[in-house]
């Protein structure tokens, strides 16, 4: 009975979504804003990667919000977990030699790759979020493969996390003061197109975000693991 009703309700929803989608202009150049981004993105922001020009240029404010959401998730998780009673769980298997050795070899490379991704966010696919996530996945690997868990340095991770966010904001606020009174305004010169030092504030912000996201995501894993010790 209950299942039947649910299925009917979901089918109605599906009907609605299909009805809405049926009038959607797929593959037509009706998307005015997107067209503007592809046409003028380079001039407006100086970033070679158009996705980046949208993420940090046109919609930088959203990115600030998303960074905050991540920050929030990390804090919220810590709040919830810090109040829960610690409970034991299954014994930890010692990681195999292969995993351990592989980790030693891969870990610096992963970090390096992550750094590359967020440093070149304005030039090639990727950016602060992706780079940070890659770095964090390196830390996940570390947790998996090191026999005795090394704890993340609380001080350093907090510092990265906060300073990363603050740099983003302060750059935004500097834009408000300098130039033409716009928050997150690109007050640095765009430089030569398609080089590392171009696109004004974008690489700076991406570096900050990269550090922030990397440390935050690692911290989430760390907090989760800490509680399960």
């Amino acid at each position, binding site marked *: 009975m209950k299942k039947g*009703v*649910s299925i*009917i*309700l*979901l089918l*109605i*929803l599906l*009907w*609605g979504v299909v*009805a809405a989608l049926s009038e959607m202009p797929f593959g037509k150049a009706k998307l005015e804003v997107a067209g503007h981004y592809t046409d003028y993105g380079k001039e407006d922001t100086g970033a070679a990667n158009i996705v980046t020009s949208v993420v940090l240029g046109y919609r930088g404010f959203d990115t600030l919000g998303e960074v905050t959401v991540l920050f929030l998730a990390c804090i919220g998780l810590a709040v919830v977990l810090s109040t829960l009673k610690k409970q034991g769980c299954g014994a930890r298997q010692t990681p195999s030699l292969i995993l351990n050795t592989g980790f030693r070899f891969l870990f610096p490379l992963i970090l390096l790759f992550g750094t590359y991704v967020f440093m070149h966010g304005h030039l090639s696919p990727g950016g602060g979020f992706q780079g940070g996530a890659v770095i964090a996945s390196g830390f996940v690997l570390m947790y998996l493969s090191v026999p005795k868990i090394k704890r993340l340095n609380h001080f350093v991770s907090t510092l990265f996390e906060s300073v990363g966010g603050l740099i983003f904001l302060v750059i935004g606020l500097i834009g408000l003061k300098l130039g033409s009174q716009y928050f997150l305004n690109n007050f640095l010169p765009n430089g030569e197109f398609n080089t590392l030092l171009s696109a004004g504030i974008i690489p700076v912000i991406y570096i900050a975000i990269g550090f922030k996201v990397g440390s935050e995501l690692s911290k989430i894993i760390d907090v989760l693991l800490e509680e399960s010790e």
Partner: protein
Amino acid sequence: MSLEILLAIAYGGAFLTYFSGKISQGLRDGAAVLLSLGTVLIVSSFYNVPAASVLYEGFLGLSLVLRMNSLAWFFAIAIVSFNALCVIYSLAYMKDRNEKDYYYFMLLLINAAMLTIVLSGDLVTFFIAWEIMSWATFLLISYNRNGALQAGIKYIVLSLIGSMCMLIGILSVYTSFNTLNISELSGQLTTASAGYKLFLLIIFSITFGIKNAVMPLHTWLPDAYTESPTPFSAVLSGMLTRMGVYGFLVILFGIVGIKSVLTLGSGFISYTKTMAWLGAITIVIPTFIAMLQNDAKKLLAWHGIGQGGYMILGIAFGTSLGMAGGIFHTLNHAIYIVLLFLSVGAVEYSTSGIRDLNSLGGLFKKMPIAFLGGFLGISGLIGVPLTNGFVSKWLIYKTLILENAPFLAFAALLGTWGTILSVYKFLHNLYLGQIPEKHKNIKKTPLAMQVPIVILSFAIILFGIMPGLPLKVINSINVAFGFSPLDVNLWGVVSEAGTLNMLNIFTALIVFGAIVWGIFRISRPATLTDQYDNYAAGAAIPKDKYHYTVEYYAPFYRMVKPFLKDIFDLLYQKVARANDFLCDNIRKIYTGYVGNYVMYIVFFMAFLIFIQLKWSVF
């Protein structure tokens, strides 16, 4: 002296009293008395001085206006005088109670709010003051704890229903006529359709009917009167309840206009007829219920309801005689009911809180002043000639006769008979007969209690012999409402239905009294016998049980009790229980199971999407 200053003193006085109580008790008592006497003086200085002023320009786009005219003055002077008497009385009565700062604060706040109601020149001010009065009254009814809590809730629920109705009424007037000024409205409403007028009248009648305890809406009153501190019961019964009458006067005569009211409907369906009959029912049933009561205050409370019926009956016909009767009865009722409450309060004070009629008696010698109050009070309540109640009842009866309403007149008469029976029980069980052993050494009545009782007793006689004093003012109210003036002199009224001249009656009664007195002188003097000096077949008499104030009217009780259930109260209790049940079950839609909640969400969307895609309703 402007009206704003008067209100500032009234409201400021309440706060001042409260804060001075934090400094010293004596200061607070002094402040309360002086401020309430001060307001009496100020209000009395407005006699025949019409005034109007704008209190607040542009409150939500409206002007809050105050005005003083004869109607307002009449009610205002009554309010502040009774308040002052009750404050003086409280000095002694409330002496040993806690939280007196709070008590005086609320008492004066309610007084100020009532004053604002009668002074308000527009309906918003009226409503605001009405609401302040309602919640402050609630807070003071609850003062006695225990049973008072239930009474308070009952009061505030009905009060809230009333004020919501009034709010709808007021705002519908506002949206239709774009003004809420009473004097401006009076001209405009004549053009409105009959249905609209009826709607307005009904919705306002609910409000004022609740406040004036007209029969099906009376249920809050007995509990509230009984459970409040007695001086406040006096205020409550004296003028606060009669704000309902004031409201009726304003809406019937001030706003809608009596000419249009009289045209609404015909026969029994007509508005005025219905109102009059409700008034008659309100007279008869509560008066007989009152007879069954053994709690002195509850007995008075039921009479409070019953007497309200006379006022409604008086004003329902919209003749100048009836108006005069209704308004005058409002004042008279206030005088004697306040007096009665105060004398019950004196008994209560002396016997440390006993007001059960079965266990009192014979207090006449111990508390002569209280007896005087009680005696004159019930005389007024019955309407004995030479007391004020007689005059107003006479006016109302005359109105009924002139209007050719024999059944209503009979109902009113029936009410009077019931009143006689029940208040005699009241007087007898408190003051007459023999005094029970345990009350032999009771506290004396303090001076602060005696003074108000004496003043009010005097007023009963004064207005009984010289009804022209208040009737003059009432006459000017009549004129202001557009009625033909009555021919009033100091001793009475001359009207087409006959002349009332209290001087003649006074003389006749004096002569008659002299004869009766003479006969009593000649006959053998009565001898007093001790309560226990009687033959009981040698058995020991249980002292408290064998007392002839116990079970007064017992055979009569058995006869009428089955017919005199307060069915409305039972009905309301049922409604309240049903509401409790419903509320408890409504809450169960929040099952606590998150799957259901998600289902609600999906259902909401699916419903909307379905009806739109299927039928395009939006």
